[in-house]
């Protein structure tokens, strides 16, 4: 498979403008500046590109919603907050090939008619911010940013700014609040950012990888881009792979690949470490449902599962999960699902901004109950209680962090209930031993 984003990362010096340009960098900007914004929008629509930040919303459609009132500035905001546990692809891209993001920002800003654009990067990535900031300075020095870019008459200022440790600032309206210098409290929608975003002006928020993908889309055309992948999962996808595997790291894949190949091929994850067995997988960052071993490589229908949006979601939440942010976390047979669920819940409780009571109180309560079960002090009723709490959070909050906290708990109970029960009935043993693999269940599959 031809890589579209990471094909040049191993070229020596590719971080620098000179090498990047020599390798064909900034061609998409040259091409874009000769097109009309609407033509670029059409290419992006044709490409089928979907947002790589987690929700998978079609990028062309999102761009077409941007309000364009006369005389009001509009903004492209790049979401480089990357805080979803299991996700580290944006960092990799920005660290290895920062000019690709800048090139994508220029072409995309031109298409949206933005003359000021911002990259919001998480504060912990200060060392990455310095790399991108250097690259921005190089782009200014070479006439790709600033006034009258390459003699086209188009002006663009690009600024990178940082957060300071808050997962919630990855949520687009919290990101905007934070960019305004405020606490990262999500806003109630509507109004959507496309109408009232940064400083109440129309704004598009896109993930780093989404913006980088605009470069090959303009270079090769949307149609070529759409030929890669499968169905509505077009193009390539960056996957951050972590957990108990032989080769953790960032991979650019064709979404037409099977999960089986991705996990077990030596070209990718190289299988489970230390000859252990696969126990479970969280395929799209901590927020998405966990899959038990028998639903990872196969769907409930027994078909090969694909590494695509539709493939990972096959079976819905009953037997499937989501591609999410592409944070692919693999668990071996020695891992404890109760402990992991507690760990993720602690994370969401810590990161809740506290505006809505179901999220603020619910995550704290779930954390306490999970801690009790994990340490052998839980009861069978606690398991049902957990189920009820998560149900009461889901869908009842201002922003999707509530859902993100509820789903991992729901999926863990759905697929690993016997492991939770074992903790309750074996309070001592469960402190020194692990439950191992859960038994395979069969599911009623609805006829196609």
């Amino acid at each position, binding site marked *: 498979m031809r890589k579209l984003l990471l094909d040049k990362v191993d070229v020596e010096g590719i971080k620098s403008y000179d090498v990047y340009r020599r390798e064909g960098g900034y061609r998409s900007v040259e091409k874009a500046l000769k097109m009309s914004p609407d033509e670029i929008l059409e290419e992006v629509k044709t490409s089928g590109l979907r947002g790589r930040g987690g929700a998978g919303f079609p990028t062309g459609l999102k761009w077409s919603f941007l309000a364009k009132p006369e005389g009001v500035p509009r903004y492209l905001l790049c979401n480089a907050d990357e805080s979803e546990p299991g996700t580290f692809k944006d960092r990799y891209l920005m660290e290895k090939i920062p000019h690709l993001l800048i090139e994508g920002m220029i072409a995309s800003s031109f298409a949206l008619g933005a003359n000021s654009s911002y990259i919001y990067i998480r504060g912990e990535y200060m*060392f990455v911010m310095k790399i991108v900031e250097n690259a921005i300075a190089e782009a200014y020095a070479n006439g790709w940013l600033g006034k009258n870019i390459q003699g086209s008459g188009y002006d663009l200022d690009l600024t990178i700014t940082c957060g300071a440790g808050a997962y919630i600032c990855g949520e687009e309206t919290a990101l905007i609040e934070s960019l305004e210098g405020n606490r990262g409290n999500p806003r109630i929608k509507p109004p959507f950012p496309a109408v009232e975003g940064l400083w109440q002006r129309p704004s598009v928020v896109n993930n780093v990888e989404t913006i980088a993908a605009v470069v090959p889309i303009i270079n090769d055309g949307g149609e070529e881009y759409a030929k890669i992948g499968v169905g509505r999962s077009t193009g390539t996808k960056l996957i951050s792979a*972590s957990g*108990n595997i032989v080769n953790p790291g960032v991979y650019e894949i064709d979404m037409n690949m099977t999960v089986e190949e991705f996990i077990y091929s030596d070209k990718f994850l190289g299988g489970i470490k230390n000859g252990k067995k696969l126990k479970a997988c969280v395929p799209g960052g901590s927020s998405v449902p966990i899959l038990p071993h028998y639903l990872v490589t196969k769907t409930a229908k027994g078909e090969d599962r694909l590494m695509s949006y539709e493939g990972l979601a096959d079976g819905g939440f009953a037997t499937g999960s989501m591609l999410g942010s592409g944070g692919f976390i693999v668990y071996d047979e020695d891992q404890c699902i109760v402990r992991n669920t507690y*760990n993720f819940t602690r994370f969401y409780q810590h990161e809740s901004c506290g505006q809505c009571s179901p999220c603020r109180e619910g995550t704290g309560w779930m954390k306490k109950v999970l801690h009790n079960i994990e340490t052998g002090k839980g009861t069978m009723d606690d398991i049902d209680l957990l189920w009820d709490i998560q149900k009461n959070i889901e869908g009842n909050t201002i922003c999707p962090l509530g859902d993100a906290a509820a789903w991992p708990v729901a999926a863990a109970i759905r697929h690993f209930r016997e492991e939770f029960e074992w903790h309750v009935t074996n309070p001592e043993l469960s402190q020194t031993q692990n439950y191992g693999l859960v038994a395979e269940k069969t599911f009623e599959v609805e006829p196609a």
Partner: protein
Amino acid sequence: MSAEATKNITFPKELLDEVARLTAQYPEGKQKSALLRILHMAQAHFGWLDAPVMDYVARLLHLQPIEVYEVATFYSMYDTKKPGLVKLEVCQTGPCSIEGADKIIRYIEKKLNIKVGETTSDGIFTLKGVECLGACGYAPMLQCGHQYHEHLTEAKVDELIEQYHKNPKANYMEY
């Protein structure tokens, strides 16, 4: 706050120039957008964000002190309580946890004779448990200053602690 304390709290010229550069990146009247970054600068320069430092930042940006306090207390990277000179921030989230972060945390606790959240009696090391830092594939890991230390082992931790003990400001970058 004493007049003496106020007098000492000023950025040197280079940092004031940097404040001017950062605020100029935003449209007229929207200079508050530079607040988060300037708070990072203040923390790196003054050690932590006590009230006089936050008041100083408020004056620089023409904000009410409360506007700075509410931001400083929202974000976990800001220290509104005095930490040790060296903060060891070990990622404790799922992917790191299943790859040995818990053992590393226990090891550091034993070695420095402190618990997570505490500072050594000589005021040098603070141990913190933090959430996913985007290094899950290189677990276990910790952040110290602006540096990520990945693929941690006990031996690597020993080395790091020795190195930071000698030079607490190794790996610090100005913002």
